[in-house]
């Protein structure tokens, strides 16, 4: 990746510039610097939005560029969140347990500490045993590895089975929905080992940094999310440019033709599917410490459908379109559903946006599909092509 890459893709530079300015501005105005124009909770909302933008560009690459309408990429996002959540919860509980046991006259044995941690974490699901999947939870490094490996391996196995059997189109979409639904249902069980519908909580508290204020923690995660989004953007821009981009777009437009040119289409699909799943996992691992809690409801099938809606509204097949769509729709969604939008009193009926937002979203999705198939990002074409 050289300077010529950026010269050929000026939109990447523009994006990085806007993202940097935005990050600096929010940091300076946050409570962490004492200015406090932007509240800590809003910094968290913005940081989470950046993570959603990151998973949206992954979705755009797999759908907008490669033509695989995956309706299961939010599962990979959730797995990333669970993987980091396990370490956060374990390490923090360990600190609390060790501190409370240290007040005893007799020093606790390692087995006692482990039992106490197990009791703390799994008491809500009537258990005290550590399930085997928590085997690495005491190691931040290994859990970070899981953030990448588990979504990557799941995507690779799932993709290999699906693509090898040449499952395409709507059938593949249904399969991916089934995958995320199955995962959510499994996690809802109390004996899944991940606390059932309670999920993992207290993730906003970073073990070892209890004395650091949430204002500072939030801004650090915000900046980390911005860096991840920037890096992800450059990475995907590189993948979808050049010859790889040609082949991937060729697969989207005419899979059989690419095959008769001698390309092993299944390998390419598997590559794109797996790489985007890994990035989705990383985005999730940055999102949930800012959200503070993750539960199986997060990876319900609807979440992955929202992801597709964001990309469609923002504009498929252009990375900045996915960013715009995810940011615009998810921020608007929290404004409408968070009570920000005033209710409209029609006299005979009061439109409450918490209920009606979904209707509005659905209508805008239909409108975009019918009248602006290029999405919001398509508006940039008018700006760019004006001189000619």
């Amino acid at each position: 990746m050289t300077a010529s890459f950026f010269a050929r893709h000026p939109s990447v530079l523009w994006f990085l510039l806007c993202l940097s300015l935005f990050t600096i501005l929010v940091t300076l105005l946050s409570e962490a610097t004492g200015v406090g124009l932007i509240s800590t909770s809003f910094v968290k909302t913005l940081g989470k939005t950046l993570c959603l933008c990151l998973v949206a560009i992954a979705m755009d690459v797999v759908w907008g560029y490669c033509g695989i309408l995956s309706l299961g990429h939010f599962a990979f996002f959730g797995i990333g969140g669970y993987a980091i959540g396990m370490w956060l919860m374990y390490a923090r509980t360990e600190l609390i347990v060790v501190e409370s046991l240290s007040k005893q006259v007799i020093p606790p044995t390692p087995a006692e500490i482990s039992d106490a941690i197990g009791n703390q974490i799994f008491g809500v699901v009537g258990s005290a045993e550590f399930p085997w999947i928590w085997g690495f939870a005491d190691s931040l490094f290994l859990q970070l590895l899981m953030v990448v490996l588990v979504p990557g391996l799941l995507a690779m196995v799932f993709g290999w089975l699906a693509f090898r059997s040449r499952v395409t189109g709507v059938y593949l979409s249904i399969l991916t929905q089934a995958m995320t639904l199955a995962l959510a249902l499994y996690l809802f069980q109390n004996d899944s080992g991940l606390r059932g519908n309670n999920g993992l909580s207290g993730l906003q508290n970073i073990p070892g940094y209890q004395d650091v204020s949430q204002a500072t923690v939030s801004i650090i995660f915000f900046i980390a999310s911005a860096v991840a989004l920037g890096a992800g953007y450059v990475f995907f821009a590189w993948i979808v440019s050049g010859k790889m981009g040609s082949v991937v777009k060729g697969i989207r437009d005419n899979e059989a033709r690419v095959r008769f040119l001698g390309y092993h289409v299944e390998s390419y699909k598997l590559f794109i599917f797996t790489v985007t799943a890994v990035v989705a996992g990383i985005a999730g691992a940055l999102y949930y410490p800012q959200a503070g809690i993750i539960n199986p409801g997060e990876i319900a099938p609807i979440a992955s459908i929202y992801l597709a809606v964001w990309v469609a509204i923002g504009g498929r097949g252009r990375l900045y379109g996915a960013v715009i769509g995810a940011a615009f729709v998810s921020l608007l969604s929290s404004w409408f559903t968070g009570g920000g939008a005033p209710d409209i009193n029609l006299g005979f009926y009061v439109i409450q946006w918490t209920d009606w937002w979904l209707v509005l979203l659905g209508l805008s999705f239909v409108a975009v599909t019918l009248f602006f198939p290029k999405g919001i990002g398509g508006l940039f074409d008018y700006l760019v092509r004006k001189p000619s």
Partner: protein
Amino acid sequence: MSMLLEVSGVTVTFDGFRAINNLSINFAPTELRAIIGPNGAGKTTFMDIVTGKTKPDEGTVIWGDRNISLLGLSESQIAREGIGRKFQKPTVFEAQTVRQNLAMALKTPRGPFAVLMHKKTKSNGARIEAVAEQIGLSDSLTRIAGELSHGQKQWLEIGMLLAQEPRLMLVDEPAAGMTPEEREKTTDILKEAAKTRAVVVVEHDMEFVRRLDCKVTVLHEGAVLAEGSLDHVTSNPTVIDVYLGRAHA
């Protein structure tokens, strides 16, 4: 001279209908061949078998100097072995430029990681320009393929075949929808290509086949009915009966 492709005793049945019935046909390393026949004679199915899209129930398809069987290979492996195919309906990648279309077809490593790390080189650029010259699209390299005329798309697809450097080109109705001048140019491109490789043209249009001036194989009900020069096969009474006779009836 040993054969480039030997198809022998091939039978394909779709729901009880014998699309290909004990078909045997051979191609030499350098030749131009036209395959004609009425609708349903099995011309497209024959191409599907050779390119790996359809697996036959019986028979063998032996390829190249190493005499390997094509039946166990996937479509992409067969393409990499050196068999290129042009579809009846022009299928180019309409969202991409002519140059990108040709670059994708160019004979270079096909694995995902080789493609990801692919660097543009001068020699590849020169090859693309040489092919563009051959198909008369030198001035259109930066155009989006979707904007090309129907005839130009047909040529671009033939160009993509040439860029693949196949040893066997299977070309399905290259002249469909072309003006007379365009047909003439297409004939020239195919004749030129056949000097160094085998080119098999499936065609409905007798005038076009006459212009190709090559050996003709007549398929009927999934088997070879006659073979030889166009004049030879068109004077064959059975051919007149099943094909020309019916066409004129």
